């Protein structure tokens, strides 16, 4: 990687963190409605992963999708506008926090039924395979999603049809309040891929460099026609499952322990100790991000609401 790219990844991670913090405040002010799931703590996962993709690679994820949108190149403005339900948002205010997408950036959403997007990911990959394109579909989902039938059907089909998919399980240790070992028969989630003869591995998701390296290698393998691959990424969400989570299922010192492994702190240290960047340069990025987030809030707040007539728009494509 060139220095510029190292700094860009830092920028993306910090931007996600600050957008999420701002979103939490806007939620408390009542400006964001519905459910809001923050990505704080998991920034290294999608930033590392998506930075390794080629433009033809598709990305699809679950409802914890703001960060993924940013990594796919969606602007902070559009993310914020969607959170506020504005017509300038990614989904013109019809999707909300859980349903962001930008197909022109090969970001295929934001899906809020746990595990339901895995079969869709298989289909996206089928589309590329059918047309002889060399894109890979990167499908991200939580540990909890590996317990629903869709996961098993989709993994099986991906192997039977040798589809170009990178299955990425973001194991953040909990599905809502249920710890992995209370819901999953296997403790290492990657083991589930064994049942479908899908090669698999586990990586430390708090370290962006490790995620990035694994992703580069696996995407190249899949692109060369080797079929699907399963990557389990160990990570942790520092905030509750969604806003208003009483967090009765985990102890504060467990959260503290993980927070010491803050992915941004780890990356900051990596950049400075390897003399890739000076602390002052990173501070500058931090300031730039603060301004960007402020501007995105400004953009979202001053953006128009959808028109009442938009209610009936896009129910069908054909007139």
């Amino acid at each position: 990687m060139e220095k510029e790219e190292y700094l860009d990844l830092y920028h993306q991670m910090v931007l996600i963190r600050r957008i999420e913090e701002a979103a939490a405040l806007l939620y408390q002010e009542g400006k964001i409605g519905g459910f809001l799931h923050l990505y704080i703590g998991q920034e290294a996962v999608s930033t590392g992963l998506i930075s390794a993709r080629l433009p033809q690679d598709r990305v699809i994820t679950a409802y914890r999708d703001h960060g993924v949108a940013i990594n796919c190149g969606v602007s902070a403005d559009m993310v914020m506008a969607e959170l506020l339900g504005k017509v300038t948002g990614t989904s013109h205010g019809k999707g909300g926090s859980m349903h962001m997408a930008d197909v022109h950036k090969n970001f295929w959403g934001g899906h809020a039924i746990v595990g339901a997007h895995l079969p869709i990911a298989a289909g996206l990959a089928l589309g590329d395979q059918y047309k002889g394109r060399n894109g890979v579909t990167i499908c991200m989902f939580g540990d909890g999603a590996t317990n629903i039938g869709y996961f098993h059907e989709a993994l099986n089909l991906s192997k039977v049809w040798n589809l170009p998919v990178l299955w990425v399980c973001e194991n953040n240790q909990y599905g809502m309040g249920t710890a992995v070992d209370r819901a999953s028969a296997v403790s290492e989630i990657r083991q589930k891929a064994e049942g479908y003869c899908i090669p698999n591995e586990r990586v430390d998701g708090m370290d962006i460099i490790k995620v990035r390296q694994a992703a580069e290698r696996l995407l190249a393998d899949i692109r060369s026609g080797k079929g699907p691959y399963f990557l389990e990424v160990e990570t942790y969400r520092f905030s509750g499952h969604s806003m208003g989570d009483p967090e009765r299922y985990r102890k504060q010192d467990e959260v503290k322990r993980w927070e010491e492994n803050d992915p941004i702190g780890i990356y900051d240290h990596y950049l400075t100790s390897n003399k890739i960047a000076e602390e002052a340069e990173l501070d500058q990025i931090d300031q730039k991000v603060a301004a960007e987030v402020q501007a995105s809030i400004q953009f979202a707040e001053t953006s128009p609401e959808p028109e009442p007539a938009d209610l009936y728009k896009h129910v069908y494509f054909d007139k």
Partner: protein
Amino acid sequence: MARITMREAISRALWEEMERDPDVFIMGEEVGVWGGSYAVTKGFYDHFGEKRVRDTPISESTIIGAAIGAALTGLRPVAELMTINFAFSAMDHIVNQAAKLHYMFGGQMTLPLVIRTVGGGGRQLGATHSQTPDAVFAHFPGLKVVAPGTAEDAKGLLKSAIRSNDPIFFIEHATLYQVRGEVPDGDYTIPIGKSKVHREGKDVTIVTYSKMLETSTKAAEQLAATGIEAEIIDLRTLRPLDMEPVLASFRKTNRAVIVEEGWRSFGVGSEIASRIYEEAFDYVDAPIQRVAQKEVPLPYNRTLEQLALPQVEDVIQAVKEVL
């Protein structure tokens, strides 16, 4: 014109569309090597190959989910669910995904997707394999639901469905596959979302579709012998529902009977009746009658099964009620 079965009509529509557009492909259980559980895709695998005639595992959610994904990339999948009873295993992908994605993402995703499936009772398959839950699927904005009653319509509507850019749930009736009808030669389409006057009459309006078109036509023939002229409207598409021919007919006859194979409660008949009351109340001369399946899970025993399904006599009886 040729006199062919509904099975052949559907098969020809698929074949011609696959010849016409290389992005059209079929996926589902037993569609390939087996030739289709109802023999609709017989010969397809040998002709088009395994890339375009794709046998899937028994994974209903993933059949529909993967078809959605493929459609999002611009392909035109025709996903087959072996019977409508198994569609419940794919309900999430039909309802929460197929019917929502275009709208929910502000129009940026399009789904040129056809889900073909087979419904209907009357073959002694017992309660799990005999349902006609068409109204369930017609409940969801974002999905289009088509259910042809003639071979000509089946071919023309299926071609329109394959060329459409919306997700379409295409319901065939298992006991209509053998029924023959006149079908125009070559390429033609029939628009989705258009009801049609199937038989003209002046005394009573019978609103129906799919298998019950056959039942209603038999009833109309018997009624004609006694001097009662029934007009039959074939809905053909349940969503979007085209009420114009229904209302035009009702304004003429002032009496209506709605005939469906599914259960009466919360069904197609309930919808049509209330739409008539809402939009043509001044023309009502008699309470609208509904003919539908008895409210039981369909039994295996032949006599009981026929007792539960709507019969020609039930339609005649209902017509007499409104006259």
